[in-house]
């Protein structure tokens, strides 16, 4: 064999091996343990779709019935969620393996996030304790106490963190806002907590121009929470009269967006190409917050020259008259 062929062969097999192991590593991280997937399959047989079958002992035949739509779990979303490695019965009672489920199971207590994540080293980066404190002081919690739980915003079967993982800010915003709109734009969910009607979100914000572009580019929590430096996503939702209404809080060089939505990214390319608050520029342009230093200087210089030129010309005209 020619030496360069040999080298090529060795090199490409190394590459192949590297790629292969990398891929299997990724798979390991992405996939739930096999035994959990198999066990969950038992539940998803019924909870995975809008119809389910079971063998009815009384009439001695298979029956097909409608599943309560609120009890349907989207398995693709589940296996992308934070808790994708879980078995259903890690959170739910194992007694659910029996069907019909025992009537008393509906009273099973549910875990809170802090039951598992409180004081847990692996989730220290999220600072759950501070989040909980924030949440307890929020308007939701102070009006509805224990009835408002973390799960109401963090769907147990679909929630996946987004602010620190998603590439695109637009996607982060969309994901986050849908969490709020799930109640504030959906009276069925809203009235789980109250008999009053949910105020129309579009009407409540009719003072904001370009509403659709704002709701696409900023999260609800930008305006409705108090910024907290020790957590990435502020959780203290303030009463509505304390919400940000002053445009300049975002539309200025020290935009609050840099301390909230762009917090995670702002360390990257802070003032790239002379742009102030450059982290924003990839997907948005905020009047007043994004200024270009070079353009600023250039415009001042050009203007200076023009004024200077006009003045000299005028003076010469007066002298030579």
């Amino acid at each position: 064999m020619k030496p360069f062929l040999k080298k090529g062969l060795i090199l490409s097999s190394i590459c192949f091996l590297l790629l292969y192991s990398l891929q299997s590593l990724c798979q390991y991280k992405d996939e739930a343990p096999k035994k959990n997937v198999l066990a969950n399959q038992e539940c998803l047989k019924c909870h995975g779709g809008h119809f389910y079958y079971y063998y009815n002992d009384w009439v001695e035949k298979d029956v097909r019935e409608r599943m309560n739509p609120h009890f349907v779990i989207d398995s693709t979303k589940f296996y992308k969620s934070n808790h994708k490695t879980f078995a259903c019965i890690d959170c739910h009672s194992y007694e659910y393996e029996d069907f019909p489920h025992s009537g008393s199971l509906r009273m099973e207590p549910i875990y809170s996030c802090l039951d598992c994540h409180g004081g847990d080293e692996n989730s220290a980066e999220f600072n759950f304790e501070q989040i909980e404190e924030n949440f307890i002081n929020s308007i939701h919690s102070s009006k509805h106490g224990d009835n408002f739980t973390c799960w109401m915003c963090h769907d147990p079967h679909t929630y996946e963190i987004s602010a620190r993982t998603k590439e695109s800010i637009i996607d982060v915003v969309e994901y986050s806002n849908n969490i709020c709109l799930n109640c504030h734009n959906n009276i069925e969910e809203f009235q789980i907590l109250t008999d009053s009607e949910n105020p129309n979100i579009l009407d409540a914000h009719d003072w904001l121009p370009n509403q659709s572009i704002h709701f696409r580019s900023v999260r609800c929590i930008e305006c409705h929470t108090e910024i907290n430096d020790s957590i990435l996503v502020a959780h203290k939702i303030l009463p509505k009269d304390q919400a940000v209404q002053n445009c300049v809080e975002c539309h200025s060089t020290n935009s609050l967006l840099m301390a909230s939505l762009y917090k995670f990214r702002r360390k990257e390319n802070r003032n790239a190409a002379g742009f102030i608050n450059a982290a924003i520029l990839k997907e948005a342009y905020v009047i007043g917050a994004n200024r270009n230093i070079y353009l600023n200087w250039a415009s001042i210089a050009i203007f200076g020259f023009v004024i200077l030129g006009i003045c000299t010309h005028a003076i010469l005209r007066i002298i030579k008259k």
Partner: protein
Amino acid sequence: MGVKIFLYPLSIRIWHWLNAVLCLLLIITGISMQYSNPEYPFMRFDLAVTLHNIFGITLTVSYVFFIIINITTNNIKFYKVQLKGFKNRLITQSKYYSVGIFKGQKTPFPISEKRKFNPLQKFSYILVMYVFFPLIFITGWALIFPETIIHDVFGISGIHLTDLLHVIIGFFVSVFMFVHIYFCTIGTSIGSNFKAMLNGWHE
């Protein structure tokens, strides 16, 4: 100096002053948005946005008005350029403004009923009215309806590019305005051109 020529019909005069006032207001509100600062609030941001939009829309309407006048009254003929030798005429006029004027020389292209503008005026008016204005209108209207803007242009926000273009042209128009007003003081007397734009008669 004797002869008076009627150069500015009423419609042009109305258009022109409306245009001048709107441009001034647009520049003020525009700068106040671009340099908004909570510590030195020059003008409330939402007020600046609303006013800038209203003035911008009105300016577009007045621009359409300008185009219509130009076509229907034959004012457009003053904007037609004989390309041949235009460069030389521009140079001649520039020389006059930078040297000749101080030596008391006569203007090389005196105003007549056939020639309202000297070559430099013609050039700058065409540039502003037929290049800058359309561009600033297109970008401005796009920013009023930002959902029409391509979201992502090779990894840069489309709104960002649109806005940048809008702001840069706005800057050029502001520079034009200063130079323009200054050059209008060069006439029979300092105020005569302004008077002409008021009553139509050039001295």
